[in-house]
């Protein structure tokens, strides 16, 4: 009888300890292991691709290439891809070469400096006018897509910024 009583007491204690342990586990799971939400990262990430492309396309080349904007240079490059473009810039380079250099310069000072991986693809159905990337893009990505009509069909301009 005494054995049974003390055994019951011990069992009760064991149950209490198990319950406390479970409670502590829950606390650890939901409180201690709570990850900080990356609100700012999501906000800037969501707008970066579209802001970059929209600002880049309307930027004028100024004295470097007859003040023509990048969008028109890309269109010219797409329409005269076989001859590297028909517009000849001030330094003697054609539009395709100039626009590749210009976009490289822009990304060098922006996304590259900010350690952002990206993939830029400018193409028609027949040709890839421009292809530029940095790093791998395996995780989440935000895309910005623009398209323009050219004599060689629709020109797609797509920038993927990788998370």
């Amino acid at each position, binding site marked *: 009888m005494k054995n049974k009583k003390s055994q019951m007491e011990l069992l009760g204690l064991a149950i209490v300890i198990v319950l406390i342990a479970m409670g502590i586990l829950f*606390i650890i799971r939901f*409180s*201690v292991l*709570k990850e*900080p*939400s*990356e*609100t*700012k990262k999501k*906000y*800037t990430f969501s*707008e*970066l691709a579209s*802001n*970059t492309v*929209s*600002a*880049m396309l*309307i*930027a*004028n*080349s*100024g*004295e*470097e290439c007859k*003040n023509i*904007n990048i969008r028109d240079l890309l269109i010219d490059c797409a329409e005269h891809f076989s001859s590297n473009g028909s517009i000849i810039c001030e330094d003697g380079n054609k539009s395709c070469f100039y626009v590749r250099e*210009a976009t490289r*310069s*822009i990304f060098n*000072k*922006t996304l590259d400096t*900010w350690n952002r991986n990206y993939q830029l693809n400018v193409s028609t159905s027949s040709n890839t006018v421009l292809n530029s990337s940095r790093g791998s893009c395996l995780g989440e990505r935000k895309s910005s897509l623009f398209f323009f009509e050219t004599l060689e069909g629709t020109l797609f301009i797509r920038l993927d910024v990788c998370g």
Partner: protein
Amino acid sequence: MRRKSQIRMGESIAVMFVFFLLLVAGFIFYSKIERRNIIIEKEEADELKAIEIAQIVSFLPETQCIKENVQVYNCLDILKLEALKGVIEENRLYYYDLLQNSNITVKQIYPDSTSSWIIYNNSRNWTKKISTQIPVSLFNATGDPTAGDTGIDPYYAFGVMYVDVFI
């Protein structure tokens, strides 16, 4: 008899001691967790503040391009940025309510990166800086082709607005 009561007293005291020890240990554990959670929440609040200021700056009528009274999204007027010099300094108190402790700079990246403008600068003692970079178009009205062939400045440039919020 005396021994027995002493042992029992000792027992009670030992139980109380262990109980309070467990209580204190539990308290310390709880307060450490709470402290961590509060730090996380404070970081999130700081990030929200940085986003708010970035949003306010992005939509300031004093800097935005306006075409036929419609704000052009993601575009800053260079002439307004030039015109703003001094205006914000004169009205610092007004802008503090909006922009608080922050640094807002715009830099032109393309076609040349010679120009930059400091819109607002108020950085006091700080422990943390949250930076946001926003690519923008920079519009120069004097280069507008509808104004005739000036051939002087490009009328849209590519720039970046840097918003640094100090906590």
